[in-house]
C-alpha cells in the first residue's frame, strides 16, 4: 500500500479541507485555524491515519470535529461576517441569490450551520451526520429542518 507522507498529502488535500472549513466557519482566518488544528492533531498519528482505508474522510471528520470543538470552546454564537463584502457588487441574479443564501447561512446558529454544510455540501446522510457530530439522528433532522425553515423565512421562500 502506497502511504503518502504528511506534506504530500496536505499539499494535495489541503485546499479541499480549507474549502470545507470555510463553509463551516464562514471566514478564511477561522478556516485556516480549524484546519491547522485538525492537522496538528493528525500529524503525530500520521503513520496510522495514512494507512486507514480512507484517510481523506478521516481527516475531514477531524476538521468537522475541530470546528465543533472550536465554537463550543469559544462560545461564539455567530461567525464573523466581516469579509463577505470584500468583492464587487453582484452582477447577476444568480450571483445575488447565492450571496443572499450564503449570508443567511452565516446567521444560522453554529450547530444548525454545521448540519446544513454536512448535508448539502458534504452530501452526507442524516445517520452519517449524527455519527460525525455525536448527536442523535433525530436531532440532526431537527437541526436541518429548523435551519431550512429559518433560511426560507429569511429569504422569503415558500415552503414546498
Amino acid at each position: 500500500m502506497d502511504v503518502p507522507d504528511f506534506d504530500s498529502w496536505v499539499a494535495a488535500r489541503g485546499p479541499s479541507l480549507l474549502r470545507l472549513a470555510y463553509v463551516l466557519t464562514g471566514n478564511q482566518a477561522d478556516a485556516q485555524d480549524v484546519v491547522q488544528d485538525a492537522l496538528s492533531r493528525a500529524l503525530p498519528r500520521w503513520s496510522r491515519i495514512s494507512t486507514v482505508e480512507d484517510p481523506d474522510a478521516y481527516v475531514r471528520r477531524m476538521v468537522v470535529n475541530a470546528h465543533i470543538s472550536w465554537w463550543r470552546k469559544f462560545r461564539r454564537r455567530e461567525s464573523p461576517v466581516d469579509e463577505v463584502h470584500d468583492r464587487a457588487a453582484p452582477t447577476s441574479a444568480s450571483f445575488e441569490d447565492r450571496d443572499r443564501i450564503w449570508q443567511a447561512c452565516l446567521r444560522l446558529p453554529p450547530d444548525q450551520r454545521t448540519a446544513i454544510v454536512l448535508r448539502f455540501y458534504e452530501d452526507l446522510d442524516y445517520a452519517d451526520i449524527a455519527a460525525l457530530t455525536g448527536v442523535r439522528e433525530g436531532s440532526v433532522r431537527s437541526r436541518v429542518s429548523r435551519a431550512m425553515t429559518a433560511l426560507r423565512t429569511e429569504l422569503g421562500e415558500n415552503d414546498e
Partner: protein
Amino acid sequence: MNDFEARLHETLDHRAGRSMDASVLADGARRRVRRRRTTRTVVAAAVVAVALPIGFSQFGGLGSGGADQGTTVASNENSGIRKAADGFRYETWHGVSVQVPTEWEAGAMSAWCSGVDTPEEVTPVVTRPDTMAIRIACEPANGYGVTLGQPTSDNLDYDKSDGAGDGFRYAYLNRDSQRYPQGAWIGSWIDGDESVTVVTQDRELTQRIIDSAMRVDQGPTGGCPVQLNGEGISLCRYRVNELLATRTLTGEQAAAALEVLTSSPVRAKEDRCLPAESDQTAGPDDRTIVYQDGEMVATAYFRGCGEVLVVDSTQKEGLIMRKMTEDVRSLVDLD
C-alpha cells in the same frame, strides 16, 4: 432535492470554491504540535504543585486514602491548602476535586480509538461535562481516564440505597462493565449531583484516585488557593462566579507565566472587542483570575475576542488592558 435545496447546494459549492492559500498548512500544523508539547511540558511540571483548600468532609468508602495524600503547605482564613501527591495534580469541577496523574490529558474517554487499535495505546484522559465527545463507535465505548460530572444512569450502575450518612455519598470499585476496557478497574465516587468515575488498568491507581475525590470548601474565592506562602501564583477559572478549575505555578513556571501576561500587547480603548449582543454565553463572569501572595495580579476575560486586565503599578490607574494572545489563552484557559 427541491429547488431551494439545489440552490443552497450550489451556494455552498460556490463559496467553498474561493481560493485560499493551503501552502502554509503543513508547517502551521507542525508549529502547533511543537507549541502544544511545550505547553504540556510546562504545565505537567508545574501542576505537581497545584494546591487546593481541603475544607471537605472526608469520605471513607474505599480504604483510607485521600486525606493522607497531600501535605498542607499553608492555610488561609477559610481552609487549609495542600499539595497534590508527587506525580499527581488536582482537577476540579463544580466544587469537587480529584488527584490524577500529571501526564493525563484533557479529552473525551469515548474518543480513545481515534488512530489507535486499543485503549492501552493512548494516554488516559480527564473528561468534563463540556468536553467534546466524538462519537466514532469505539469498542469498548470508553477508554481509560477520569470523568468529572453528574451521575447518570448509563454511566455506571449504582444504587442510592448504598449511600452512607445523611447525604448520598459513596464509592465503589468493579471490573464488570462492557462500556470500559475488559479487565479495567472502574471506580465511582458520587456525592449528590456530582460524580467522579475512574477507569485504569491498575486497581491501586483507581482506588487512589477515587480516594482523593473530595468536596472543596467554597469560601470567598470559591475554593481558589490564593495564599501560597510566596511560592508562586494561582490561576482560577470561574464561570458565573463558580470555580471551574485551578492551577498553581511555582518557580520558573510562575515567572514565565507572569512574563506571558505582562508582555502581551496592550489593547487600546478604541480597539476593544466586546461580545456582540447576541453572544449570550461568554459574559463578564467567564474569566480566570491570577493571584500572587493573596492579591489579584491579572484577570483574563473570555468575552468577545478576549482581554487581560493586568495590575501594573507603572500605570496611572494601576491597571492595563492587554490582548488575549494565543500564549495567554493557553495559560489561562483551564476549563
